[in-house]
């Protein structure tokens, strides 16, 4: 540690070169941070402590098939089920059919299944008492400048009303806030309306629900409860498939894209290039300091000490660039999340990404420094000083 000053001075001996190399390293780690955030976002989707207590029951046939609402009372009777709510996909869009909104027609107790969503008691009550009421996530509200008390038009791309009109009108009565910002980006995008109002108003639903959400009393019993729920409809024309929320989400994400493969291919290309680039810089740096290194050895630095110093220099180079790159990634990802409102699964740069990143910096730094360090170690004082 006491040689830090010396290593630092060696690193910035040629300022232009070091700074140019640093920018390349920053770019590489910026990309690493962003891609790893997407990967983690996909991996972690649906993985939360409360999510593990929730079961999703949908039609076994397919996710677009609906289930009879009568199942609600039966599921509630299954031992181990604390409470059950249900929802239907509404397919809402605001102003333009392209502005799709995650809108669900939900049972009155739907929010009770999601203790991680915050709604003020007054607003919750207002929702209960307003037939055409809607609760909207805070990011969604901010995006379209909605506020409590607004009456907003909404199109449904799936369900017309009795008169065939696709236009629905809702009163915004409250705002949803997710308590856990990291996992809950999705809740801030939701638009909830009453299932009862929905079912009464469209001729296409006829008392059916899209899926049930139930909470179990004991997480360890989740599998047994899931089987018991599915047993209710065995051999009927509406067989169900019950999964934990985590398993259901993971299966969706996997179908959406093989993110792991894409990310690792890109990172492979990036780090191969980086290795070559930083390796070259270090090689040059050592080559041009040959005589200085010889002087160090002459005044008593051991061969191993010289090698360690060259290695330390390359690791320091990578650490400097890498940490700056990841910091930049934090800023950029923050911007992305704010701009898309959590629309794409992108985790904030958390501890795990930092750990991955730091390990990578260390490994790349050692690899990059290995050859020049060996060269420095094997340096023969007499030859080096003579310039041979």
């Amino acid at each position, binding site marked *: 540690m006491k040689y830090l000053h010396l290593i630092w001075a060696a690193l910035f001996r040629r300022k*232009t*070169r070091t700074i*140019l*190399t640093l*920018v*390349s*390293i920053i*770019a*590489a780690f*910026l*990309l690493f941070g*962003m*891609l790893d955030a997407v990967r983690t976002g996909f991996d972690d989707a649906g993985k939360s402590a409360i999510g593990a207590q929730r079961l999703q029951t949908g*039609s*076994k*046939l*397919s*996710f*677009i*098939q609906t289930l009879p609402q009568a199942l609600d009372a039966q599921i509630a009777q299954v031992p181990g089920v604390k409470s059950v709510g249900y929802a239907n996909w509404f*397919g809402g*869009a605001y102003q333009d*059919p*392209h502005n*799709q909104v995650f809108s669900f027609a939900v049972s009155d107790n739907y929010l009770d299944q999601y203790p991680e969503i915050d709604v003020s008691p007054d607003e919750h009550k207002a929702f209960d008492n307003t037939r055409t009421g809607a609760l909207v996530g805070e990011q969604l509200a901010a995006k379209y400048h909605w506020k409590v008390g607004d009456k907003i038009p909404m*199109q*449904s*791309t*799936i369900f*017309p009303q009795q008169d*065939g009109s*696709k236009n629905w009108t809702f009163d915004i009565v409250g705002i949803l806030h997710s308590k856990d910002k990291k996992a809950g980006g999705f809740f801030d995008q939701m638009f909830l309306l009453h299932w009862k109002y929905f079912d009464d108003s469209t001729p*296409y639903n006829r008392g059916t629900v899209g899926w049930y959400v139930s909470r179990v009393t004991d997480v360890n019993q989740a599998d047994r409860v899931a089987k018991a729920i599915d047993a209710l409809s065995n*051999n*009927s*024309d*509406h*067989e169900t*498939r019950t999964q934990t929320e985590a*398993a259901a989400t993971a*299966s*969706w994400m996997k*179908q*959406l*894209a*093989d993110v792991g493969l894409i990310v690792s*291919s*890109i990172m492979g*290309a*990036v780090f*191969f*290039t*980086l290795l*070559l*680039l930083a390796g*070259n*810089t270090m*090689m*040059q740096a050592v080559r041009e300091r040959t005589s200085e290194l010889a002087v160090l050895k002459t005044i008593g630095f051991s061969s191993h000490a010289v090698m360690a110093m060259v290695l330390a220099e390359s690791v320091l180079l990578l650490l400097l660039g890498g940490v700056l790159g990841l910091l930049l990634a934090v800023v950029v990802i923050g911007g992305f999340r704010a701009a898309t409102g959590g629309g794409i699964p992108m985790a904030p740069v958390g501890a795990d990404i930092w750990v991955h990143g730091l390990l990578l910096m260390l490994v790349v730094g050692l690899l990059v420094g290995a050859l020049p360090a060996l060269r420095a170690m094997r340096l023969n004082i007499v030859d080096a000083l003579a310039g041979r």
Partner: protein
Amino acid sequence: MLNQLKDSPMLQFSAVLLLLVVLLALWMLLSRQGRQAASVTAVGVSTLRQRLGMSAVVVVGIAGVVGVLVALLAMSEGYRETLSKTGSADTAIVMRGASASEVMSVLDRASVTLIPEAAGIAQDAKGRPIASPELVVAANLPIKGGSADDEGSVQLRGVGEQAWAVRPQVKIIAGRTFTPGMRELIAGKGATKQFAGLEPGHQIRLGSQLWTVVGVFASGDALDSEIWGDAGVVADTYRRGGSRASVTVRLSDPQKFEAFKTALESNPQLKVDVDTTIDYFSKQSEGTTQTIRAIGITVGLIMAIGALFGALNTMFAAVASRAREIATLRAIGFRGLPVVVAVMLETMLLALLGGVLGGLLAWLLFNGYSASTLAAGTVGKLSFELKVTVKLLWVGVLWALTIGFIGGLFPALRAARLPVTTALREL
């Protein structure tokens, strides 16, 4: 039309580039300074071998950028092409008004009988209108290579006999077609690769029912990712009664589309939207194509910044190592311009090499590579192949040259500005 607009800036860019190359060649041949530039470039290029490691940084760095960029753009291109190939200008799709996609549309029995009566629909040999009422739903099936519980969603299309007349590109390639009224399925070629148990002769479970797979079809487009069965039986399984999702018709003449559309949309008994299938499928692919493109360009840009600074580094070093040589040239009367041109040309040559290498790698590794995603507007996994087109390779080369240009410019300027006396004294 839209495509031409998108292409035009690139075409202009290419034309300007070509013009520049021609002008440069003429200048090098005809003027004194040009000949000087040519000889300095020749010296630079011939000594490249001595700077192999450094030069490799430029080539490999740019190859990485171009490879990743081209691969990601090929993904977006493959996706777009698969969907747009599915449609044609002489077939039209009729759905309930305000439905974003087939699977969200419901047409009642009355509409389904009314639509084929409209004018402008082609007729088959027996004089019946070529109109195919279809039902589009999804089915959960086990994923190939996954655990028993690993289920994915596949789009299931219930069709009648006219489906084949509407889509002549669909061919049975194994087994036979389903028998109307039976619980039999045929699977698209893409679907058989994604899901387990879709080989002819196998049985699969849809909910509580057993269906037999009797054949495999190929169409070379998005339909390849679907499975088909008899519309009536599918409607039964999914409790849809006499309703259908859409009616696809073959127009007697693409020109008649407007009349056909107006007739249906103004009919007070119907509440439908009419689109040509090419428009419908292009619209479906738009969002995802744009997203993949945006990701490709973002990743490409960040990588390009990294490679650009790598190139700068290399060329600064190259100029520094040749400082004496350059100063000597200037001392014996060479002007600054030939030196600038020579350094720039050398960088761009390396960049070109990197661009070609990267494009070639992307083509070798990813052309025809099959990927899949949950497509917008459908309810099943859509498999598609990455398409590395000549146009994309050209885009890659343009990126490479741009990086090379900027990466060479500053070192070149420094080389030209180097005061002759100090440079000669140094080293």
